[in-house]
């Protein structure tokens, strides 16, 4: 018995040694790869994906100057954020930087783990990417911090409040080599739209997650603005998706309609909320087109894909050297777009005036 144990132990130490060695070689290989821009030989230790990159760079040896490698660090997996990322790549494409041709994209998702977000950002910096695109606040902060003492620019998107995140100053100008776009919700436009559709409603309810800083700042904006439109605001904070049903029940007893933010956790549980609300004849307003598709009555929000495109165009300017990230103020989408779901309106017997209907970017007639 003892013999087997010691044999296994030896195996364990060998395994760990191997791991340490892989680490060293992996880093070595990566460094080598980046320094050799026109290198013809493939590094032996690289994986298949890395191998492809090397091959591509080699094939495009003469185009080496105008081909770029970027790292995308996305904080969590989520419909809006995914749209944002796809829009970003589209924005680059519109500016002539096409994935697979002169652009290599290394996409990593931190799965809502800040430690992982740090590691991803640092790996990008170590891999000497030309630009880091960070989607959502913690990823943006990690990327900016990792690239602080390098000349790698960070372009963020879907950061609701870049000023509060200390990525930009009060004048919208960046604090360093970092800029991007904010997904600040058009709160006033949304409130005006709710007032238009529900002239008699008094109380709006919002469920938000206490761990999401974006929701907190949006709630603060709603609090400041609701009075102007004759509403009162009721909010319930939750800490995990499991709290959603109870929070919805609590809130539905007190409100005339629910309003939904871009809160990641709440959005994931949106079907539960819609079902509970509709059972009581209470409409739920969304903040984004995807939410309207699955059963929110209407939304006056921003389009994440468009936000991504705008961000991609900013990134293209930086990549091409037309402008430095540090001299570009962060951007927001000024115009909001209205989406209405007619099937939901019918179900709740809410009448949508023709005036509102004509203003809508899209009018859905079924619930997905």
């Amino acid at each position, binding site marked *: 018995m003892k013999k087997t144990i010691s044999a296994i132990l030896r195996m364990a*130490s060998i395994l760990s040694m191997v791991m340490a060695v892989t680490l060293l070689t992996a*880093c070595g290989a990566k460094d080598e790869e980046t320094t050799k821009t026109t290198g013809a030989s493939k590094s032996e230790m690289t994986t298949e994906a890395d191998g492809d990159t090397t091959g591509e760079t080699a094939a495009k040896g003469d185009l080496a100057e105008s081909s770029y490698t970027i790292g995308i660090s996305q904080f969590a997996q989520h419909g809006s954020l995914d749209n944002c990322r796809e829009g970003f790549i589209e924005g680059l494409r519109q500016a002539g930087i096409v994935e697979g041709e002169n652009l290599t994209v290394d996409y990593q998702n931190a799965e809502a783990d800040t430690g992982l977000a*740090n*590691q991803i950002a640092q790996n990008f910096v170590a891999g000497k990417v030309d630009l880091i695109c960070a989607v959502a606040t913690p990823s943006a902060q*990690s990327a900016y911090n990792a690239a602080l003492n390098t000349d790698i620019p960070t372009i963020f998107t879907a950061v609701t409040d870049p000023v509060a995140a200390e990525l930009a100053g009060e004048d919208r100008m960046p604090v360093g080599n970092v800029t991007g776009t904010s997904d600040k919700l058009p709160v006033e436009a949304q409130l005006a739209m709710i007032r238009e559709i529900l002239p008699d409603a008094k109380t709006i309810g919002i469920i938000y997650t206490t*761990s999401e*800083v974006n929701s907190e700042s949006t709630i603060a904006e709603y609090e400041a603005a609701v009075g102007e439109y004759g509403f009162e605001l009721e909010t319930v904070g939750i800490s995990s998706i499991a709290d959603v049903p109870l929070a919805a029940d609590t809130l539905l007893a007190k409100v005339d309609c629910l309003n939904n933010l871009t809160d990641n956790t709440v959005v994931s549980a949106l079907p539960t909320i819609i079902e509970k609300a509709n059972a009581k004849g209470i409409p739920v307003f969304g903040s984004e087109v995807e939410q309207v598709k699955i059963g929110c009555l209407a939304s006056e929000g921003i389009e994440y894909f468009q936000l991504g495109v705008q961000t991609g165009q900013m990134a293209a300017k930086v990549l091409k050297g037309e402008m430095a990230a540090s001299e570009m103020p962060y951007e927001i989408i000024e115009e909001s777009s209205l989406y209405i779901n007619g099937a939901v309106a019918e179900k709740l017997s809410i009448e949508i005036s023709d005036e509102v209907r004509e203003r809508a970017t899209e009018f859905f007639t079924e619930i997905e």
Partner: protein
Amino acid sequence: MEVILSVLCQGMIYSIMALGVYITYKILDFPDMTADGTFPLGAAVSAMMLTGGMGSGWTFLTLLASFAAGAVAGMLTGLIHVKCKVRDLLAGIIMMTALYTVNLRISGKSNVPLFSSETIFSNKAIDGIFQWLLPSSLNSYKVLIIIVVASILCKLLLDLYMKTKSGFLLRATGDNATLVTSLAKDKGLVKILGLSIANGLVALSGGMMAQYQRYFDITMGTGTVIIGLASVIMASNLMKNIPVIKNTTAVIAGAVVYRGAWAAVMALGLDAKDMKFITAALLLIFLVISMERKKKVKTHA
């Protein structure tokens, strides 16, 4: 090179946390879940002190405050377990859950950036010292040096403590609680003390992490216990056959190697989505190889 540097930095910061987990898991034999809450607790305390503004020379006080806050949280876990007779695992979970609210109350919001505040890694006093001490070519190692000094200091202090009478009692409580009782000592008090020290270390590590990554986020504690356990288990495996190396040193090495393995897996092009599974698999492999569970079952049988 940057990857190795960042692995060392993060690994050494986590190693302080791992020392805490080592105390509870290995020495006290107490499955302490509090760490998931005390790690961000330390971060929140540090972040709030820094944004409140501290004198350059005094930023290190944030770490002491983080330690103190963590120690109080650990003490409460201990009290819940010993005085209210709640099972060890549950006591930790209760405290961890409560700390989520406490952390949000301390920080005021779920994300506090520290880009414009002085931290232990960049403030006038420490920059001055390093300018005087080091050639500027070595300046990129400044952060690593500070982290290494801090974690070695923690290790040495812990080693010293383990040699005191109180330290021996702590070890005895985990190994053979009856002995402690027969020495006319209260094993409950010893447990509370151990949990305090352990969670103090975890919080200190959290405070350092917030200053290193330059932001506090309420979610940063998720998975702390598992990182700590993995480090400790790796440590006991790696270093078992080398008697000269102290356990505490092994724990620090374990944390760095664990972080390294993680970075290696990512550098090899694996999807970040798979990281949690790999963490779980690594942990399982190491546990099975070390036969830790089997041995435990035997001794209790």
